[in-house]
Structures are given as structure tokens and as C-alpha cells.
């Protein structure tokens, strides 16, 4: 121990001796000294993290142990909120709805997006313009477009039902039927986010080496075989990254629910996000709302950590 510390002192001294004759703790010296400079650069980020991430999280944890219903002041409540949330069937059913939403929406987006990217992967006239038009669902505010969807979905005057009827198909209560509403909302998410998958996979396809595909063609491999054995393995890392990003984003779906079903009919489209919002900003029960928040945070952190490890493993294996 003694020896080690003396060695490090020596090397520090040596560094100091080599450095220009400037005081290490002067402003100038701090900027030029790597060991200090690298932390100096992080000062704003650290302040930011403490103020906007760590403090709110601690605050949420503390509040979750309080009985806090606005406008009354908070009082300590022990585990009461936690007991309530863990035993609340609405919470767990909202959790299931959220998982269903995330899995179906992201699954459909990945498959559909990959297919369309493969379809677009060739040279044709006006390709830039057409790709430019496909971006539009991505850049338009989801809340605004969900309102148009609400009109399209309407069972009386909506365009989709009009088309269904013209084709001789039965009328569908897209947003009013509790067994269908969730899928209708998922369809909006799919409309909005499939272009992202298209663009990313498209970029990946354009970056693939040509030789293996030419060889496969010469060998007379079928299109399906080429896709399964060549294309898919090569774009797999990219697909995993998009899947991960989309899952995180889909988990926080809110805007399009507000624009269309508002959690209904019944509780059929109530996601966790929606439930917390309702508890916090309609019932003003902030103790319960924060208990839910913290629980969701824990669940998401565990899930994303697992996903992250899978992702890193898959990318390494490639």
C-alpha cells in the first residue's frame, strides 16, 4: 500500500514537472490539464442529471410513501400506496394492455417496414420524392394526426367504414368496440412509425456488400433463401436496434390515446401511462400516482436492461 501510493506520487510529480510551468489550479491550468478538464466538461451535464433525473426520482420515491391528494398537504402514509398499487387490478390490466400494445405495434412495424424496404430497394424514377413523402407520418405531431384518424374511424361518417360498406363488408366500430379499440390505436402507431423501420432497413440494405448476392444468384438460390440466409442475418443488428428504440418509445404512448379513445371504451385502451395520468391529474392522488410511476420505472429498467444485454450479445455474435 505504502509503496503503491509513493509510486503514484512520483508519477504525478513527473507529470507536473513535464507540464508547462503553470499552476495546476489556475483557470488556464485546469483547462490544459486533461484529468481536470474532462470533468470540467461534464459539470453542466452533472448538474442537469441531478436536477432533472436524480432529484425527480428521489422526489417520486419519497412522495410514493405519502398520502398526498391535492389540494391537501402531504402526510406520511408508509406502504399504503404501494399496497394499493400492487393489489390494484386496474394497474396490472393496464400493464398487460401496454405490453400488448408494445409487442403487437413493434412486431407489425418491423415486419411491414422490412417488407416495404425490400420492395423499395431498387432504382426507379422519382425515388427521392416518394421516399420524402413516406417520411411525413414521422414528422407530423402524433396528437394532431390522431385527430384525423378519429374522424376516419368514426362509425357513422368515417371514410374507412364508408369504404368497407362500399365493398359490401360489415360496419366496424373501430373506437367504440372494446374488443377492437386497442387494435385501432395500434394501427395509428403502425401508420406513424413503420416509415422509420422502412428508412433504417433501407439504409442498411443499401450498405450491404454486393458479392454474396451475386454469388447466390449465380448459384440459382431462390429469393426466399437469399433473404433468410443472406439479407436477414446481415440486417439483424440494425433490426434489433430499431426494435429496442421502438419498444421504448411505444411504452410511453400517450398522445394518440388522448386524441382518440382516452383509455376507453371501458378500460380497454388504458395503458400505464394513461392510468398514471388519470390518477395524478384527474383524481390528484399524487401518492398513488408516484407509487405507480416508481413501480413502472423499476419494471422498465429491468426489462430494458435484459433487452440491452440481448442486443449487445446479438451484435457481438454478428
Amino acid at each position, binding site marked *: 500500500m505504502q509503496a503503491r501510493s509513493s509510486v503514484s506520487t512520483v508519477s504525478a510529480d513527473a507529470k507536473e514537472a513535464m507540464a508547462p510551468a503553470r499552476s495546476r489550479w489556475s483557470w488556464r491550468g485546469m483547462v490544459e490539464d486533461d484529468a481536470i478538464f474532462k470533468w470540467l466538461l461534464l459539470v*453542466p451535464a452533472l448538474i442537469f442529471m441531478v436536477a432533472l433525473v436524480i432529484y425527480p426520482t428521489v422526489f417520486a420515491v419519497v412522495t410514493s410513501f405519502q398520502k398526498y391528494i391535492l389540494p391537501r398537504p402531504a402526510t406520511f402514509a408508509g406502504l399504503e400506496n404501494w399496497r394499493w398499487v400492487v393489489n390494484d387490478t386496474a394497474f396490472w390490466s393496464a400493464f398487460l394492455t401496454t405490453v400488448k400494445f408494445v409487442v403487437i405495434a413493434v412486431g407489425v412495424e418491423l415486419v411491414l417496414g422490412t417488407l416495404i424496404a425490400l420492395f423499395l430497394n431498387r432504382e426507379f424514377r422519382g425515388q427521392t420524392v416518394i421516399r420524402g413523402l413516406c417520411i411525413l407520418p414521422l414528422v407530423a405531431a402524433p396528437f394532431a*394526426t390522431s385527430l384525423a384518424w378519429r374522424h376516419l374511424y368514426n362509425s357513422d361518417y368515417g371514410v374507412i367504414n364508408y369504404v368497407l360498406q362500399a365493398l359490401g363488408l360489415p360496419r366496424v366500430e373501430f373506437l367504440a368496440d372494446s374488443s377492437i379499440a386497442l387494435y385501432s390505436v395500434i394501427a395509428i402507431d403502425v401508420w406513424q412509425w413503420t416509415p422509420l423501420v422502412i428508412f433504417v432497413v433501407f439504409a442498411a440494405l443499401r450498405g450491404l456488400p454486393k458479392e454474396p448476392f451475386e454469388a447466390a444468384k449465380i448459384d440459382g438460390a431462390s429469393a426466399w433463401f437469399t433473404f433468410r440466409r443472406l439479407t436477414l442475418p446481415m440486417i439483424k443488428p440494425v433490426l434489433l436496434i430499431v426494435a429496442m428504440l421502438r419498444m421504448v418509445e411505444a411504452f410511453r404512448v400517450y398522445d394518440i390515446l388522448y386524441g382518440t379513445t382516452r383509455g376507453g371504451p371501458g378500460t380497454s385502451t388504458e395503458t400505464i401511462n394513461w392510468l398514471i395520468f388519470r390518477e395524478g391529474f384527474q383524481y390528484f392522488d399524487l401518492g398513488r400516482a408516484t407509487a405507480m410511476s416508481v413501480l413502472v420505472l423499476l419494471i422498465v429498467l429491468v426489462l430494458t436492461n435484459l433487452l440491452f444485454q440481448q442486443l449487445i450479445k446479438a451484435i457481438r455474435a454478428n
Partner: protein
Amino acid sequence: MARNLLFWLGIVLLVGACLFPILWMLNLSLKPNELAQAVPPAFFFEPTFEHYPTAWRSANLGPLLLNSVIVAVGSTILVLLVSVPAAYSFARYETSRGHLLFMILSTRMMPAAAIVVPYYLIFRQFGLLNTHMGVILAHAFFNFSFCTFVLYGFFKEIDPNIEYSAMIDGYSRPQIFRKIIFPLLKPPIAVVTSFSLMFSWNEFLFAFVLTRTDASRTVTAGIEQFWTMTGIQWGPMSAAALIAIAPMLVFSIYLQKYIVRGLTFGAVKR
């Protein structure tokens, strides 16, 4: 030939599906009130332009648009000030060996709902509700991890030897930044700025919850007011919604270059 025809049929379907809801918004915004809920839906009609001025006046769209600009620009500047130095530190010095970077990245995974309630309470305490600063901070929080990570990827690609040789040539640190790093920074800054602006413009939950008045509410959250007890005013609401998304639709022409890199955290490069 038949194959070609099929291809173009596919393209028409694809573009149609992408555009239809937006075009329908345009259709609704030009439709006279009595046709808004007509059965069967009216595709062609004598257009009226009355909904635009109505929406503009009744929803206070001018101030709301200004709020959107202030919030988007403010949060973007704030996030750049924080994440550019941080990303540089992570990329060049491996500061904290990636732990801190991972921590920052994982804030992206925090579900919005889990932080909206504590944010509301804290901002209430500090008098930040109904202020631009409140929304700016919330949006900056969201963009922080994204910007830091994308910039980190770019900085990693800059060869540190350029800096070392400049240092040997007697450049001071500020000079190296001014003369070498900043010029190289233009493309990554363009990417993160574009996406930060777009995110902030389109964000709804925080802009809605943290504001109760038009004083700092953004235009995206402001469309909500057409949803009254008596029903939805389709004409004015569609007009307002279209005004709200128009800047981003135009912006997308510029954004197209960056979309892959931006939306995948820089993980997928072109």
C-alpha cells in the same frame, strides 16, 4: 411490363397510405361545417377558407406558435450547451469508463408517465408551471440523452491525433476547439438540432400537463381546446392541426438527410 405495373401499384398504395390521414385533415379543414359529418363522406365540395381565420383567432394560434418556437429553440440551445462538452469528454477521455454515459442513455428508457408527476410537483414548487422555462427544461431532459449519444458517436470518429499534433504545434485548448473541433462539428450539430427541434415541436404530454394557460402552451398541446363539451369542431380543429404540423412537414425536406442517423441514436450510419 406487368411486373412493372404491379410495382407502381404498390408505390401508389404506399404513398396513399402515408398521405391519406394528412390529406384528410386538409379536406376537413376546407369543408363547410354542414358537411363535416356528412354520410357518405364528401370528397369533393366547394371549399371554404373560413376555418383558418376562425381557428387562428379562437385558439390564439399566433401566441401558441410563438411559444412553440421559444420552447423548441430554448430547449435545443440548452441541450446543446450541456451535451456537446459532455459528449466530447466521454469520447475523448472515456470519462468514468462509460458508466455515466450509460446512465445518461438509460434516462431515455424512463417512461414519460413516471416522471411527469414528479416534474409537475417540483415545477409547482419552484413556480415553473405555466412558464416557458418549465417546458424547456422538460423537453431538454428528453433530448439530453439522445443528443449526448449521437454527438458521442461523431466525436469518436474524429481522430484524436489531429488534436495532439495541434497541441504540439503550440495551440492552446480553446484554440483547438475553435479552429479544429467546431468546424468538424457542423454535421452532427445539424442532426441533433433538427431532431431536438422536431421532438420539442411535436411533444404533447409535458407541454400539456405543465401548462394550464396559453402563456406557455405549445401549439401541439393547444389544438386540444377544440375538443369541447358539445363535441369536436372538426373544421377549425383540422385547420389548427394543419397549421401546427405544417412547419415540420416543410422541415422534413431538410430532415430527410439525417432521418436514419437521428432516429436511431446514430447507431445506424449511412
